[in-house]
């Protein structure tokens, strides 16, 4: 069962990078929303949301254009993406990871699901709600050549990773929602 939802998540991530996402979304009204039992965030806008275990994706125009990925309470040994090919291992979260290693986890995971030229930059301390965390920027290209940019904030609390990743097409979409994403990042409250 765990394998099957991981596979589904990986397929979604691949499809999202390729530019289209299937149905199964529900509406998230503006206001405060709880992400599992881990943290809550607030948004002024309505989003379409879909959940896969501890992973949630929010989008407005489609995850291939812009998406906020919430990873809530990722535990030691868990991966951000599914292992589809049994010959290839995937990066896994380790509760002892330092911020640079969390950034590497994100960068390497995105690189394994079809993106190229993935770079994580600007790693620096930041608040995640009321606790110490960090943030960094992302750049990548889909294999079809679409340039994407991103932002991520995260922290490790009680050996669990809390992570929010925003990824959007550099052309138009990134700038269109980045202010709202910053508001969402600033609104995090740990549960």
């Amino acid at each position, binding site marked *: 069962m765990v394998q099957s939802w991981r596979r589904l998540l*990986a*397929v979604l991530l*691949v499809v999202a990078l*390729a*530019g*289209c996402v299937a149905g199964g979304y529900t509406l998230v009204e503006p206001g405060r929303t709880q992400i599992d039992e881990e943290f809550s965030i607030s948004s002024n806008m309505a989003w379409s949301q879909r959940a896969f275990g501890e992973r949630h994706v929010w989008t407005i125009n489609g995850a291939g254009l812009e998406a906020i990925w919430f990873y809530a309470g990722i535990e030691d040994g868990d991966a951000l993406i599914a292992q*589809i*090919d049994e*010959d*290839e*291992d*995937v*990066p896994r979260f*380790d509760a*002892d990871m*330092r*911020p*640079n*290693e969390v950034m*590497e986890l994100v960068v*390497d995971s995105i*690189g*394994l699901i*079809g993106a*190229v*030229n993935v770079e994580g*930059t*600007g*790693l*620096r*301390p930041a608040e995640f709600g009321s606790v110490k965390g*960090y943030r*960094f920027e992302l750049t990548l*290209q*889909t*294999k*079809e*050549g679409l340039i994407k940019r991103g932002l991520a904030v995260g922290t490790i609390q009680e050996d669990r990773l809390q992570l929010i990743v925003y990824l959007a097409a550099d052309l138009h979409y990134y700038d269109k929602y980045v202010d709202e994403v910053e508001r969402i990042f600033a609104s995090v409250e740990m549960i």
Partner: protein
Amino acid sequence: MSRAPTSVAACAILLIASACASTAPVSDIQPGQRPALESDEAGFWMAFEEFEDDLRASSLVVRDPALNRYVTGVVCNLAAAYCQDIRVYLIRHPAFNASMGPNGTMQVFTGLMLRAENEAQLAYVLGHEMGHYIRRHTLTRMRDVRNKTDAASVFGLAGAMVGVPMSGAISSGIAYASISAFGRDQEREADAIGFQMFRKAGYDPTQAARIWELLTAEAEAGDWPSPPPLFASHPPTLERRETLAGLAEEASDAPSSAYEERYQNTILQFRFDWLREDLRTRNFSGSEHLYDRLVEAGHGRGETLFFKGEIYRLRDDEGDDEKAVEAYTLAIAERDAPPEVFRSLAFVEWSRGRRAEARQAFERYLEFAPSADDRLMIEFHIEELS
């Protein structure tokens, strides 16, 4: 999504063409030759041309003009008459692989270029791929598949040819290469043709067997049970190495060169990225074997030793911290070690509880990379360690 209708059309043409295809032996393709419009071969070409359109726009393709000129130059040096018919695409992918489409689309993976020790080894592999092109092996292969399987299988192959995404595959290049699984006799033919061109161009004949020795050793050392893509349908490695070594012995009188310096100087500026992509495969044992070989060869020792240390830092098995520190220390002694070696050393020292050494390494990182984009984070760590 706009690709779908044209891809389907290509597949349909392929299916129609397949209904009247011949099983007769095919002659070699001549320089400048294109298939007759009404032939099944024209259908195959059309499907590959669509794939090539996608490839041309793909971010997987390495665009550097000098590197492209260099590899294309090797192809033209091997077979000047076919120079205009072959279009080289350098694919940013860590696997050791190269492939050849029936229409002259040649893909050369950066993983091959990272592993080749010299131009002769690269030239041998490219010559082998050109052997497939000249003998029109893809046409034979597609006709063979069509005759042995049902239409759905042919349709599936056509889908793979035009780059329909395969789950888990990093690139459409993998899908493309997967249908180029030639038979062993075809591989032997391509070896023979490739060797002939390679020898005529003045390359050191011993390098053909050498590249296979290197790959065999790396595959045996690796963590993954599957062979590298280029091994998939090839003759048994021992047979191939013996054949190529025999050919080299027969050709040993003529003057030749491996062009090692020229090759290494050309790829020098790309090695860091290629090593990083290799590391991301997490085939740690295979990478360890490869990096040891590259360090021994003496090209880019500092950066290779840095990546060797990264293997241990990421793998984090028992004793890996010590191995990482050893590799980083050796890297620092070289002139070409990247500043990141100090940052990685700091993290490993920190995890070993050596806080003073960690702090010192962080400070050296900032000294060598004062504009580092993670400077604020590193300063925060230095504060934590104080």
